[in-house]
């Protein structure tokens, strides 16, 4: 198990560098530059800018210098946000996104698992059809439609909650709900499917034949196998969660990492773009590793060497 973890951790670094390289390549291949937004600059000034940012060196040198720095975890300074290092920016804006993402997934898990289990137990009941149809809705309504509608109803209509910005718990509710909707839906459906499959298996029949009551059969015997699809879903879910926070941050004017990323892309702020991409790639890969490890704990048949 340990060697497995180490191997996976080791692979993360070259992978992240690969991602950074591809992104860097894309940025460099495209015409235009971070300063070309503004009016055409007089050549002398342009020369200065290029020298300042080391853009006058040949491309492979620039690549080499950048990579060397990155391995030291030095992503340089942001081009647009004068005087701030990329690391600072990431550090400052990450907590917003992380909080929303974490709570969104937590809520999705709690609601989704419960709904899925009950739906599976009461198959074909009104609850089953009702909850699965609602889940379908959750999958079909995009975040940028759901969010504003929630704001319209709860903030601007009923005055129960604040419509935007960061603040206390009440500020969190709408963004978290908006983000978690899709995942609630997926998790509810996956749980239901997983539980149904498990409940039909032979070993559940054995458990009943031993005289165990339904609650024990469900919680002790069925649950572990039934939630496995949800665990495997968590990996890809994280990538989607990232995209989701971008939308939520825009709608609710939250200064999170997603917003910063979009800005940096529009600004062609290369160091910032690369820094965020590298950071998020590593985060996703570590997360997938954690998911795989917990898989091993859930299912004793899986042995990592």
């Amino acid at each position: 198990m340990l060697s497995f973890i180490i191997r996976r951790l080791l692979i993360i670094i070259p992978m992240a560098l690969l991602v950074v390289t591809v992104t860097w390549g894309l940025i460099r291949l495209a015409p235009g530059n971070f300063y070309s937004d503004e009016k055409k600059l007089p050549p002398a000034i342009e020369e200065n800018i290029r020298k300042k940012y080391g853009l006058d060196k040949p491309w492979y040198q620039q690549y080499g210098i950048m990579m060397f720095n990155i391995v030291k975890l030095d992503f340089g300074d942001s081009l647009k946000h004068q005087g701030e290092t990329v690391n600072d920016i990431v550090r400052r804006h990450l907590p917003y996104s992380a909080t929303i993402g974490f709570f969104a997934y937590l809520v999705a898990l709690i609601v989704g698992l419960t709904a899925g289990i009950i739906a599976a137990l009461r198959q074909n009941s009104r609850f089953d059809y009702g909850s699965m149809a609602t889940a379908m809705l959750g999958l079909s309504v995009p975040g940028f439609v759901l969010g504003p509608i929630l704001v319209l109803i709860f903030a601007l209509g009923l005055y129960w909650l604040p419509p935007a910005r960061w603040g206390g718990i009440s500020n969190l509710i709408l963004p978290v709900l908006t983000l978690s909707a899709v995942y609630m839906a997926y998790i509810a459906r996956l749980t239901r499917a997983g539980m149904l499959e498990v409940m039909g298996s032979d070993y559940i029949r054995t458990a009943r034949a031993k005289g165990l009551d339904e609650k024990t059969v469900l919680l002790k015997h069925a649950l572990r196998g039934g939630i496995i699809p949800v665990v495997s879903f968590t990996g890809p879910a994280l990538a989607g969660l990232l995209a989701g926070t971008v939308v939520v941050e825009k709608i609710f004017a939250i200064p999170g990492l997603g917003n910063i990323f979009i800005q940096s892309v529009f600004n062609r702020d290369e160091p910032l773009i690369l820094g965020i991409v590298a950071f998020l790639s590593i985060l996703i890969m570590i997360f997938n590793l954690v998911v795989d490890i917990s898989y091993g704990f859930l299912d004793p048949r899986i042995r990592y060497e």
Partner: protein
Amino acid sequence: MAENVEIIKRASLWRDAWKRLLRNKLAVFGMVVLAVMVVAVIIGPAIIRWTTGFTADYVPSQIEQGDLVRSFSPSLQHPMGTDDAGRDILARVLQGGRISLMVGIISTLVSLIVGVSWGAIAGYLGGRIDNLMMRIVDIIYAIPYILIVIVLLSVFGGPNTPAIIIWLSEKFGGAGNQGLSQIFLLFFALGLVSWLTMARVVRGQILSLKNQEFVLAAKATGVSSFGIIFRHLVPNALGPVIVYATLTVPSVMLTEAFLSFLGLGVQAPYASWGSLAADGIKNIQIFPWQLIFPGVTMALTLFSLNFLGDGLRDALDPQTRKF
């Protein structure tokens, strides 16, 4: 004797699946709504232009430059109201629907072509090539794709669209149309997002079909490898592929809407449901219909696609049924 049983089994497999699909009320509902939506976006704009003269871009002449209020609420004349520039939203939603659906379907086709070919070749050839091809899939899978797509679209979009994409869009849509070339760029960008899982699904199917007898028979009669893969194996792997494709369309449409919402997707003069929503959000407090109509229309379409996909999955794979 044996092949007759096999042929009978296969013909009735599809018919059985169709019967089962029709029994699923939700799936039928999805199919109907989808059909209505497709018809609406195809002939709708023409009908509207014919009856009222409104198009997606048309600004009624009564509205002068100096007029401050151009957004009208839903009325008989404008069933979905108008936007900030006075354009009829119903016309825009239908037009946007064309683009959204088109992008969804064509991008799915792109991912189908790439994914099916990749998976089929990998599964059929097996061994080291299979290993290599699937490792590439694994590697790409681990990358936060969406970030790269965002970067891709932003740096290559608009005036920077690479020449080949412009060439392609000119072939199909006429010269000098930046918006169109952006859409073509989207086809590829979005198609490249979902081909991975398709490849995995197809490879899995091919692996299990590879060793069956009809493949042996095809080989014995001298069919080339290419022929075997694409004329024999792929048609038999179709079931899960269809299901997955039907479920990819809404997923791709959501991604396109997401990108358009950020300003990276469909650009003016074209609109998609996502870009309409982005426009509409600005005025949510005063003119909520500008967001709600495109949003609800999109949700309805995705809803139907999802139900249809679900129904297809249940119809084609009855083991997942109740008992």
